[in-house]
């Protein structure tokens, strides 16, 4: 029973991303040893089989490789929740500017965003971080672990920087391509 096998076993039963320190504590080894074991596992999975290691939401989790998506999608028939342009837009703003109030989101977008924020909170992409110490004490929103997980992000640092105002965006190809 090597550390590699033990780490594999823990990741196999974990139902969410597991942090290195959690693994180290569970197996009573150093985080460095866990790192090494993870590397071995990673190359082992890369060689063969449908399983891979992914780093997301600040932890490590086993998943199937993307090339199995079609078969698995047909087998599990997951209900993919569609996300409208405005939901994505609000999510992008919160991800980048958190903690942020509804009023501040609306100031950026120039439209009522109450509905989008509520839906995103219901889907556990956003949650309340506290209240802003200004009159009215409005709720401050931030993104959740679930957000990182659903967008395959390991941390918020991976988000690209927003393009500053006034900067000309390269035109997107029109419908005529």
């Amino acid at each position, binding site marked *: 029973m090597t550390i590699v096998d033990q780490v594999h076993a823990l990741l*196999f*039963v974990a*139902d*969410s991303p597991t942090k290195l320190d959690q693994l180290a504590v569970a197996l009573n080894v150093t985080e460095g040893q866990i790192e090494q074991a993870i590397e071995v596992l990673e190359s082992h999975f890369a060689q063969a089989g449908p399983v891979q290691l*992914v780093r997301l939401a600040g932890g490590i*989790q*086993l*998943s*199937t490789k*993307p090339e*199995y*998506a079609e078969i*698995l999608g047909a087998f*599990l028939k*997951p209900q*993919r929740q*569609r*996300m*409208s*342009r*405005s*939901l*994505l*837009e609000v*999510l*992008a*703003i919160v*991800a*980048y500017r958190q903690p942020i109030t509804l009023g501040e989101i609306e100031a*950026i*977008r*120039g*439209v*009522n965003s*109450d*509905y*989008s924020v509520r839906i995103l909170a219901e889907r556990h992409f956003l949650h309340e971080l506290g209240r802003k110490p200004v009159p009215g004490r409005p709720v401050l929103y931030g993104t959740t672990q679930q957000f990182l*997980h*659903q*967008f*395959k*992000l390991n941390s918020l640092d991976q*988000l*690209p*920087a*927003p*393009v*500053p*105002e006034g900067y000309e*965006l390269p035109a*997107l190809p029109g419908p005529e391509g």
Partner: protein
Amino acid sequence: MAVAVVGSPKTLSALGMVAPTDLEIKLPAFEGSLSALFNVVRERKIDLMDVPLFPICESYFKYILTASLENLDEAAAALSALAYLLERKAWLLLPVDEPEPEVVEDDLTSILPTAQEYRVIVEALTVWRDERADLFFRSADAGPDPYELPFTISNVTALDLAKAFERVLERAEPNTIEPLNKPRKSLQDQMALVLRILGKEFVPLTDLMPERYTRTEAVYWFLAVLELMRLGQVVARVEGDTVEFALP
């Protein structure tokens, strides 16, 4: 947007009680008394969104302050009528509780001009979400309780084990009387002992045990072997009519 206040009481009941005092209302969308406004709104003959309620409220305050208030019922009725209108309008102003119209997801040109700054992030999120949709994870409740996992005991059945235990017990000597405060042996210690003695060769339980043992000791030996089998650290097989154990 002139609003006149006239204080002549009417008795027609719009609220099923005393009619509101007639505040005469003159607005682009409506001209008439408060009770008339109340009626047309209730019958949905006018779009309340076109009727500013602020001047009406102001008039009502003026009326409350200046009128002699001989009839508090009238003032109260007017207040109820106003409250109804305000509530109706407040509901109209709330966002409609139905899903937003579906927009083609990757139509990034439709991002609000004010949020253009965030377009790169929206683009990135769109890509990552598609990539993420290709990954599947083990579900939260997948798999049996790891502590209750099945283990192979080759051709050994529960009955074989029971028989083996019975045989061990038959040879046991009655328990010696021990002082009550004697610490109980732990199963863990017993398991360690079994692991030390047992080798790769299959042997019956009695070969491991000392020549003489009590019933309690027999139970400990047996439990230790069972627990080790469950943990996969000891394997068992039936040879003839004896159960034999070994290290895997």
